[in-house]
């Protein structure tokens, strides 16, 4: 059974009198534990697809199923709850809250889950350890390097043990070496937690390390290739 299923998923925007077909009838399945790269030029629909999968946007038409739940039937509150429990986000600019320390940033999603803070602290500490930042737990984001900040963002995305993590250009703001370290971390988490990872990237080197690469063009799927373990991903 697919973890994420897109069925003829379409998102159109209206800009002035013109209709922009950001995503145009995409159908695909992503199974639990997959590591998927979404590539394509600017304006190809990558980020729109990610936002739709993360329930930040509502589609113009088509269906999106996450863990067999038809998201079209969810109200705003239920969509928020699904984002909290089943989806993790990582952004290019980290989006850490400057007023919170590392532990508090990682624990942020727990606020919006019933009893999350009670049970989630240990999970947050464990994740901080797994991303190698135990010695930075009480540091503020301004005291971290770009790579460290993105590790915090990755830990935050996993704190509620979601089944799906969506990453939008997560290596776009760091150097090549740090980018590779982050990808290695993601691969490790993908293997250890069997969490589905969908990463939007311009970086073909990064994309080549995913097990599956989906190329978008003009809002449509141009290619969808699975790569056997060659990239070193189990």
């Amino acid at each position: 059974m697919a973890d994420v299923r897109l069925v003829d998923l379409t998102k159109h925007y209206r800009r002035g009198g013109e209709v922009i077909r950001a995503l145009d009838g995409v159908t695909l399945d992503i199974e639990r534990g997959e590591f998927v790269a979404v590539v394509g030029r600017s304006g190809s629909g990558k980020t729109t697809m990610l936002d739709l999968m993360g329930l930040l946007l509502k589609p113009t038409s088509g269906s999106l199923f996450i863990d067999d739940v038809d998201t079209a039937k969810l109200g705003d509150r239920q969509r928020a709850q699904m984002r909290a429990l089943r989806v993790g986000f990582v952004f290019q600019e980290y989006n850490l809250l400057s007023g919170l320390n590392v532990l508090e940033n990682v624990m942020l999603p727990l606020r919006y889950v019933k009893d999350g803070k009670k049970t989630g602290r240990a999970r947050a500490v464990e994740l901080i350890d797994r991303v190698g930042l135990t010695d930075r737990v009480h540091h503020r984001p301004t005291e971290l390097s770009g790579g460290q900040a993105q590790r915090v963002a990755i830990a935050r995305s996993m704190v509620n043990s979601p089944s799906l993590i969506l990453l939008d250009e997560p290596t776009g703001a760091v150097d090549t070496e740090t980018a590779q370290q982050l990808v290695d971390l993601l691969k490790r988490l993908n293997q250890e937690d069997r969490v589905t990872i969908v990463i939007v990237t311009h970086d073909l080197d990064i994309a080549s390390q995913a097990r599956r690469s989906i190329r978008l063009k003009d809002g449509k799927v141009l290619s969808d290739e699975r790569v056997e373990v060659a990239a070193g991903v189990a």
Partner: protein
Amino acid sequence: MEVVRNIARHKLRSFLTISGIVIGVLALTTMGALAENFNALLDGGVKYFGSSIQVGPPDGQSAFLIPITKVDEIKRVDGVGAAFPTYQFQAKPGSAPSFSFGIPDSIIAGDPAENDWAALKVTYAQGHALDPNSTGQVVLGSTIDTEFHKKIGDTIDLPIKPPDAKPDFVNHTFTVVGILNVTRTAPDTFAYITVADGQTLLKDSLPTAIRDQIPVAQFAQAIDVYGKPGSSITDLDNLAVKVNAQVSGVKATKPSDIVNAFKSGGAIFTAITTAAALLALIIGGLSVVNTMFMAVAERVREIGLKKAVGATTMNIMGEFLFEATLIGVVGGLIGYGLGAAITAILNATTPPGQSTLFLVTPALTILAIGFATVLGALAGILPAWRAARLDPVTALRNE
């Protein structure tokens, strides 16, 4: 904790915003305490005058003298429960008039039994009531006692001799037998003596030429009339009409006329002081609105992120509302604290013999802090609504 950090993040801006609320609540507390004090004074008047009928000389008579036989005539009017002759004199004649919200120090002569009929009852901090058949005894109100530092058994010369008194100025020595508890109204500045002593002072107050020709024991300056127990103010109004109709040579004033005059005076004063303070507070509230809008504008990405990780519209709205409310609470507490401290200091430094100006009541405390809290919350609604309605996709990519 995060909300405290958010407020602390922009120290100067938060300080200025909270200062706006502080100034407003400070004004509300001090002006409100002034109004509360004034109202407590008026409430005493309302209580006293609402429970008795004031009977004086008829309109057109300049001398405040009524034949004491009128007391018995009034008692015979159906519905009258009691009637007492009274006399009132300045305790400090010749003193320069000064602006005060209090009632000037006065000597009141009457029957101690009147206290049993009056709605505004006095109680004794020390000593006891006057012996109605005695002379030379005095019971002091709390303020006048503080002014002259008297204790039970001390003596006091009344009226107080002014520094520039003429050689023929007359006063008498009284022994303090009782000191009253604070009432925050008229009795605090009164010295109570017996009817016999009142008549002596009445004689002293008459012009020398006629002093010996008037048998003062046959006159009262005014008569306090009480209805049967359980009489309402309407009953007393009707009784005043009956007294006027059945007893010649006197004028009974309807209690409701006096009470309404007190109430309208109090209402106007309260309205003026409270409106001025609320205006200041609302201006403070607008600064909270401005601050919260700025906070929303600065934290667009934060709002987008929170929505992305599961915050609902109500979560975001609640967070911003809480922040605005906290600003109101902090401003309210500081403003109230400062206001209460200032009024306490001013009351403590009021010269002896003058009534204090401020009264901070529990109701005022609740009003000041509660209004600041509600104002903060109201001021936060629009910014919080704007924050909550932000599209997360747009917010997340906000530069």
